């Protein structure tokens, strides 16, 4: 049984894809050595939805456990095309020079549609040297496309592990602002701090002053920080 995350994802896609889609996937994964891996992977990332859309994976608990150990959480809810996209990135980055990794990930984010961005953000922890992709992940928090924001902020170990305090705090306040449940943020208790509590308290005060509803989550944020 394969033990590395990329192999698990490649296997499940190959097993469940229709024959033509399987061929396309394997051709997209292969590096012919005569072109730009960045372009090949970027085009394949785009096309995965059309070819694999509507299918679900059937990964067993032990496979999900291996994926979780590598930083891939929430995989049980992934559609098959997201498994393919993550496999393409995780395997494809091996064909790219280390010095180009950061630009590669940033370009995939910049040119990705919402589903591609969600897949990319959800797999950053599992890529080699994940701390290098901090700028892309922090930039992703600036989106107002809620599912993309959720992909980086929720059920994702990356902010807890790699965001500096200022970026983590901004992400939590943005979650409250977008009405995304803060309990979904990994590490919300461990990373709580006085400045975050101050920001949340001030936000509650602004909402009250404007005659607007104050989200219940604010108590969780201030509570974690003052414990």
């Amino acid at each position, binding site marked *: 049984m394969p033990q590395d995350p990329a192999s698990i994802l490649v296997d499940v896609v190959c097993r469940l894809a229709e024959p033509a889609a399987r061929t396309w996937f394997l051709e997209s994964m292969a590096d012919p050595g005569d072109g730009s891996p960045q*372009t090949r992977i*970027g*085009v394949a990332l*785009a*096309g995965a*939805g*059309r070819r694999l*859309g509507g299918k679900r994976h059937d990964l067993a608990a032990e496979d999900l456990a291996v994926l979780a150990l590598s930083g891939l959480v929430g995989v049980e809810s992934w559609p098959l095309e997201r498994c393919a996209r993550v496999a393409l990135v995780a395997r494809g980055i091996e064909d790219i020079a280390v010095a180009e990794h950061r630009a590669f990930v940033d370009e995939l984010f910049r*040119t990705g*549609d*919402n*589903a591609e961005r969600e897949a990319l953000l959800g797999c950053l922890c599992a890529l080699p040297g994940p701390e290098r992709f901090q700028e892309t992940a922090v930039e992703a928090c600036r989106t*107002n*496309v*809620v*599912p993309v924001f959720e992909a980086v902020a929720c059920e994702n170990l990356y902010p807890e592990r790699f965001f500096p305090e200022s970026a983590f705090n901004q992400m939590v306040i943005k979650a409250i602002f977008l009405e995304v449940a803060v309990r979904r943020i990994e590490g919300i208790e461990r990373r709580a701090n006085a400045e975050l509590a101050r920001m949340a308290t001030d936000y509650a005060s602004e909402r009250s002053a404007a005659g607007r509803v104050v989200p219940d989550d604010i108590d969780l944020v201030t509570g974690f920080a003052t414990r």
Partner: protein
Amino acid sequence: MKMFDPHIHMTSRTTDDYAAMATAGISVVVEPAFWLGQPRTHVGSFEDYFLSLIGWERFRASQFGIHHLCTIAINPKEANNRFLADGVLELMPRYLEKDSVVGVGEIGLDDQTKKEEKYFIAQLELGLAHDLPVLIHTPHRDKKKGFE
């Protein structure tokens, strides 16, 4: 009754329009890429526009329960700028693969120049290569001749 609007430019419309459309029963739209009114001066402007069609606009529509699809292309008017047109043709193989891109368009003729014809044909070929339908724009002026 559910309705499908096959040609609507939501980039030019407000969020209130989305609310009205949802109330009226529109559940799916196709937004073709077109000339925005203000001429573009960089290939990057087209790329950002395509990204807005597949990204922000798709999300904005979803907030009203509307499924947003689009077509992408270099439109006939701006096809007269060879620098821009060549740049957009280079972008299209990637963007035609995106989930919500359902065709090549709007393509066709505007002033009916040789350049417009050249990029019209090139994009018809892209449609064939990607197995996608094309959405044709016929000229506003001298339409009958252009159509022929």
